[in-house]
């Protein structure tokens, strides 16, 4: 029998530590054979972007991440899942999102992390606003068709 699934879902302004989160997920476990992590960072768009502002729907953001995580744990028989999404002002080079999936074998861990990211992009209520280096508000980032297509591949 596998040990209990550890699921950590957080929405926060502060940064996260990849190593610490992996350690927390795997501490004391002897059934985990694979850990895959994805980190999403803020890019500067070739020097044009000074910051991203992340807005979220408090309560619903956590609930939706938990819902997506639950589906992934079930579908890929994950042994552990961590999903952390930051909000507020985020500078180029800083972390935005972290997903860690743990499973007995690598394929489930890869697929679990990939699945969670694809659904997080299209279903978790977060919105990015760009701030340009010249001080102007670059406006709200538009949703990409490619993100919807990435989600559709899991049907």
């Amino acid at each position, binding site marked *: 029998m596998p040990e209990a699934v550890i699921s950590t879902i957080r929405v926060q302004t502060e940064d996260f530590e990849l190593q610490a989160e992996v350690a927390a997920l795997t501490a004391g476990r002897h059934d985990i054979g694979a850990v895959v992590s994805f980190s999403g960072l803020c890019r500067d768009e070739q020097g044009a972007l000074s910051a991203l502002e992340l*807005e979220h729907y408090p309560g619903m953001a956590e609930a939706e991440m938990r819902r997506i995580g639950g589906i992934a744990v079930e579908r890929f028989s994950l042994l552990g899942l961590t999903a952390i999404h930051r909000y507020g002002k985020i500078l180029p080079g800083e972390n935005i*999102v972290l997903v860690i999936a743990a499973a007995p074998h690598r394929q489930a861990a890869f697929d679990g992390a990939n699945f969670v990211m694809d659904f997080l992009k299209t279903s978790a209520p*977060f919105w990015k606003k760009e701030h340009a280096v010249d001080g102007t508000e670059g406006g709200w980032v538009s949703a990409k068709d490619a993100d919807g297509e990435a989600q559709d591949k899991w049907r």
Partner: protein
Amino acid sequence: MTKLVYFAWVRERIGKPEEELEIPPNVVTVRDLLNHLKTLGEEYENALQYPEVIRVALNQEHVEHSEAIAGAREIGLFPPMTGG
């Protein structure tokens, strides 16, 4: 009274993050609600000009525009999501 909450450019165009509204009884579905809100003023008309792109959550769960809003305590209106 029903609590409406707005996010991202929907919030900016309507000009407030949330409000309590009395919803008329002939407003049954999410689609009806979007059309009703558009009649409340220029800022709503501007925010909801293309209602088909607006995403809606009832009590913090995603719903289709055909969904009935009866019983919703909180209705969220926002653009397509761009997190991750």
